[in-house]
C-alpha cells in the first residue's frame, strides 16, 4: 500500500511537471520574436476559435438558458418565503456569474474541443504526421500546441461572457412567468451585486480554464505512442484530468479572491 501510494505520487508529480513544462513551452512560443509559422499559427487559432467558440454557441446558449431558469426560479420562489427576496440578484451573481458560468462553460469546452484536440493530435501521432513535422524542423509546440492554447483561451472567455449574459438575462425573462419581480428591479439588483472584480475574476478563471484544457488535452494527444487503441485511452484520461484540474483551479481562485 505504501509502495503503491509512493509510486502514484511520483507518477502524479511527473505528470504535473510534464504538463506544466508543455504549458511553459507553449507560453514561451507566444512571445517568441521568430516569424516562423506565424501565418499557419494564426490560421489554427482562427479555426480553434471558430470550432471551440462559434460552433459551441447553440449548446452553451441552451444550457445557460436552462440553468439560469432553474437557479432564478428556485431562488426567486424560495427567497421571498424567508423574507430575503431582495437577495435574488446576489444569488444569481454568486451562483451563475462567479461559479457555474465559467465552470460549466469549461466542461462544455472539455467535452467538445478538449476531446477533439486530444483525438486530432493522437491520430496525427499514429499517422506519423508529428514525426513528419519534426523531420522538417517544425516545432510541434509552436505549430500545434500554442495556437490551440490561444484559440481555446479566447473562445472560452467569449463563451463564458455569453453564458453569463444568457443565463442572467434570458433565464430571468423565461422565469418571469412565475415571478413577480419586475425586470427593471431585477436588472438594477444585478448591477448592484455585480462588481468589476467579479467580471475580472470570471475572465481570469476562464482564461486559466482555457489554458488548462488546451495544454492537458494536447499533452495526452502527443502522449500517444503509435497505436490507434491508445487514442481513446488518452482521450478519457485527458477528460478526467482536465475536469479535475478545472475544479481544483476553480477552488483555488474562488478561495483566493472571495474567502
Amino acid at each position, binding site marked *: 500500500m505504501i509502495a503503491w501510494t509512493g509510486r502514484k505520487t511520483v507518477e502524479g508529480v511527473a505528470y504535473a511537471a510534464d504538463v506544466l513544462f508543455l504549458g511553459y513551452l507553449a507560453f514561451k512560443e507566444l512571445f517568441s520574436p521568430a*516569424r*516562423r*509559422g506565424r*501565418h*499557419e499559427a494564426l490560421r489554427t487559432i482562427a479555426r480553434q476559435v471558430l470550432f471551440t467558440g462559434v460552433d459551441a454557441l447553440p449548446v452553451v446558449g441552451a444550457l445557460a438558458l436552462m440553468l439560469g431558469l432553474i437557479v432564478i426560479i428556485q431562488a426567486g420562489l424560495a427567497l421571498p418565503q424567508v423574507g430575503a427576496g431582495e437577495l435574488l440578484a446576489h444569488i444569481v451573481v454568486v451562483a451563475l456569474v462567479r461559479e457555474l458560468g465559467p465552470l460549466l462553460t469549461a466542461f462544455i469546452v472539455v467535452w467538445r474541443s478538449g476531446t477533439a484536440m486530444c483525438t*486530432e493530435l493522437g*491520430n*496525427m501521432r499514429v*499517422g*506519423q*504526421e508529428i*514525426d*513528419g*513535422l*519534426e*523531420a*522538417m*524542423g*517544425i516545432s510541434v509546440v509552436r*505549430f500545434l500546441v500554442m495556437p490551440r492554447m490561444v484559440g481555446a483561451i479566447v473562445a472560452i472567455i467569449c463563451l463564458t461572457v455569453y453564458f453569463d449574459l444568457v443565463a442572467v438575462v434570458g433565464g430571468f425573462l423565461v422565469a418571469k412567468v412565475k415571478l413577480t419581480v419586475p425586470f427593471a428591479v431585477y436588472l438594477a439588483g444585478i448591477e448592484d451585486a455585480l462588481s468589476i472584480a467579479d467580471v475580472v475574476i470570471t475572465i481570469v478563471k476562464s482564461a486559466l480554464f482555457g489554458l488548462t484544457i488546451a495544454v492537458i488535452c494536447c499533452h495526452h494527444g502527443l502522449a500517444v505512442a503509435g497505436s490507434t487503441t491508445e487514442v481513446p485511452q488518452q482521450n478519457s484520461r485527458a477528460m478526467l484530468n482536465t475536469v479535475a484540474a478545472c475544479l481544483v483551479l476553480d477552488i483555488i481562485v474562488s478561495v483566493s479572491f472571495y474567502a
Partner: protein
Amino acid sequence: MADAGEAVIVLDRVSASEGILAHLEDVSFTVRRGEAVALVGANRSGKGLALKLCAGLETPVAGSVRVLGVDPAAASDEEILHLRQRVGFVFAKPALVSNMSLYNNVALPLRYHTALPEAAVQEKVMACLAECGVELFHDHLPGGLAMGHARLAALARALVVEPDILFVDEVLVGLDAADLVRFRGILEKHGQRGLTIVVSINAPTALFAFMDRLALMRDGRLVAVCPPAEVARVDDPMVREFFGNN
C-alpha cells in the same frame, strides 16, 4: 562520382534500438555527397532505424553519427533546426498533415522556414507538385488520395526546400508501376544536380540499378556495402535468399 565527394553522413560503430521493433549493432558506413545509397534488407533488419539515424531523427546508444558535419546527439536546438532544413525525409506512411490540402502541406516548410512571398511559394509548390505528378490534387486533403499519390506528395514536400540529402523510407510502399517509374525519374533528376539520396528497400526492385551502392542489412548488422553489380559476390544467406538467382 561517389568517392570524390565529401562525407555527408558518417555512422561510426553505431548501436541503437527501437525496442522489439528494430535494433542496430556496431554499424559503420559513410555516404558521400551526390551518392545514391539503398539500405536493403528484410523487415526488422534495422534499415529503417539506420535511415532515421542517418537523418538525425534518432540518437544512438553507442557510437557516433555525423550528418552534414553535425552530431545530432550533441547539437544545439539551433543546429538541429538548421540541419532539418537541409534534409528531406519521406516516411513509409505519407505523414502529410491530414487537415491541410496537398498544396498547403507542400507550402508548409517554405512558409515556416523562409520569408518567400506567397507568389514565389505558389510557383515553387505547384512546380514540385507537377514534377511529382499530383498537381491535379493540389486542393485535396491527403486522406482522400491513393497511397502512391500521397507518397508522391510527401516527396514533393521533401524536395520543395531543395535539401542536400533526401531520405526515403520503404520506397516501394504504396507505389504502383507508373508511380515507381515517376519516383525513379525524380530521384535520377535530382541525383544529377548533386542531391545525396539514401533510401530503404525491403524487396528487389529495378531501382537498384540507379543506386551507386547497396548497404545490405540483416538482424541489425551491416552484411556488406557494394555496388549493385557486385551483390552476387556477397557470400551471405540473407543476400542469396533476398536476391534469389538474380
